[in-house]
């Protein structure tokens, strides 16, 4: 966790006026105490998930550096940002490769999965086409599909979140 991130957290605390904020990332833990009214600390965690066309993680100091307008995402990256509310209990299925996302076996065919569906390990969730090859992406866990994060036919980058699943 960099100093800049910590500064950011403190800003968040200041602005939000939370009494105390504690953030843990693996080894790293930050705790900030103050004295005022509440706001959800999850706000801080959100930036972790990166949009396809990023530069959203600029150098120098993420919070301040003006994001080059030219770097506006060419895909609905915003949609790829999980809503903060129910972060904690969700698992994100991420793209293992760069390519084009398809949510059905063929145009017009029903999608492999819909929001609300229960999926089990090994079940095909989508196809990602890379260099004319159709790669089936399978679920690694059993759970409920809470959200589909990419539109059919859109490009995805490595590590991009495709599905939000609540283990069950």
């Amino acid at each position, binding site marked *: 966790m*960099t*100093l*800049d991130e910590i500064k950011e957290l403190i800003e968040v605390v200041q602005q939000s006026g939370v009494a105390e904020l504690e953030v843990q990332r693996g080894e790293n833990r930050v705790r900030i105490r103050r004295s005022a009214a509440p706001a959800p600390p999850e706000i801080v965690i959100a930036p972790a998930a*990166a949009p*396809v*066309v*990023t*530069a959203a*993680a*600029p*150098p*120098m*100091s*993420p919070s301040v*550096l003006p994001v*080059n307008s*030219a*770097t506006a995402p*060419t895909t609905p990256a915003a949609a790829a940002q999980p809503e903060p509310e129910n972060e904690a209990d969700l698992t994100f299925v991420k793209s293992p*490769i*760069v*390519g*084009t996302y398809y949510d059905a076996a063929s145009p017009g065919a029903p999608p492999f999965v819909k929001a609300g569906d229960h999926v089990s390990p090994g079940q095909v969730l989508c196809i990602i086409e*890379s*260099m004319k090859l159709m790669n089936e992406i399978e679920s690694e866990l059993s759970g409920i599909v809470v959200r589909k994060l990419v539109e059919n036919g859109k*490009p*995805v*980058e*490595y*590590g*991009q979140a495709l599905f939000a699943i609540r283990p069950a």
Partner: protein
Amino acid sequence: MFQKILIANRGEIALRVICACKELGIRTVAVYSEADRHSLHVRFADEAICIGPARSSRSYLDIPSVISAAEITNADAIHPGYGFLSENADFAEVCDASGIDFIGPTPHVIREMGLKQRARAAMKAAGVPVLPGSDGVLRGPEEAHALADHIGYPVMLKAAAGGGGRGMRIVRDAAELESNFAQAQQEAQAAFSSGDVYLEKFIVAPRHIEFQVLADREGNIAVLGERECSIQRRHQKLIEEAPSPAVSDEVRSRMTLLLERAMRAVGYTNAGTVEFLMDEKGELYFIEVNARVQVEHPVTEFVTGVDIVKAQIMIAAGAPLSELVPQPIRISGHAIECRVNAEHPETFVPCPGRITGLNLPGGIGVRVDTAAYTDSVIPPYYDSLVAKLIVHGETRQEAIQRMLRALDMFVVEGIHTTIPLHERVVRHPKFAAGELSTQFLDALKNGG
């Protein structure tokens, strides 16, 4: 002209290509590994695609990922930079197959130049002086013996498919030959899965001299003079300069004519460098062709005024050389480059980590090519280059004085760098006198 170029590289060379594209009004796509998410090439490209994890074999070297990134962003050309996929003929072929322009020579030429013996034969055929040695792979120890006796010891055994020092063995006399031959074959087999070795005359303390070439697709060739890169450590260049104190105008023009003929003969296109060794008598011997832009290209840019990376892009887009380089090419002043690496200046142990404080030198005659900034991180997964510091002066002496003041004002905190070593070399009387050789650094270490 290209609308959008994907840069299949990272660090300072990715930024270098982005600069050229911006100046040409071409949009850029950066690709990056998870370790480079906060890199400047990601920040300054128009688009950026994460193509894999830190390990380069699964990101920067992964052909499908790079091609897919180009496809989903509709890039119409790829600049490979140096290293990574830049001299990978297969990659260049896949680009062609995918309808993406590869900014570099044709796959065929890349492959030919990659095979040392083929390259050597081609140069020899064109009248370019090559090191006396076996014409191709040695059939066995007997042939090696005969040849070595004929050339005279010391000789060197090299892996035909090799590079970077692996599979190389120096043989000082006939007694050592048999054993070294066997070892060289084993090393070659291990390193390049081909035990083929060849033999060359060995020059004890050579200078490293290389010529910068640009070639368009109509077969026009321009030779932008030479660079001297004799200050090396284990075949890694540390300091380069142009022109070379050891190359006379007469030699330069003679080599220019020879290389124009040779590169035309091999059907060379785009930018490339022809490397030579120079012996004590000042004779040049061809060693290899680097079919890409070189790390040290800025010293040539400084003395010729030619933007080599822009030229690469324009050539790939079909522009004739006549629009890209002045004729005749003028070499004005003197340029020196120091490669500042994240290494301990004495032990050369790599020192990746966070740069906590940074002051880049600037002012007259100073150029810095770097992707570093305060709080940036030099990851442990890739090469340790932090910045290229290049200076220009009206004379070699002024360039040396300028380099010393620039090194003095170059502050990097948080990691070790080779800056102190560069200061030691550039301040050395032998360096000032232009008495260089690839052995310079060893001599320095041994208190020479």
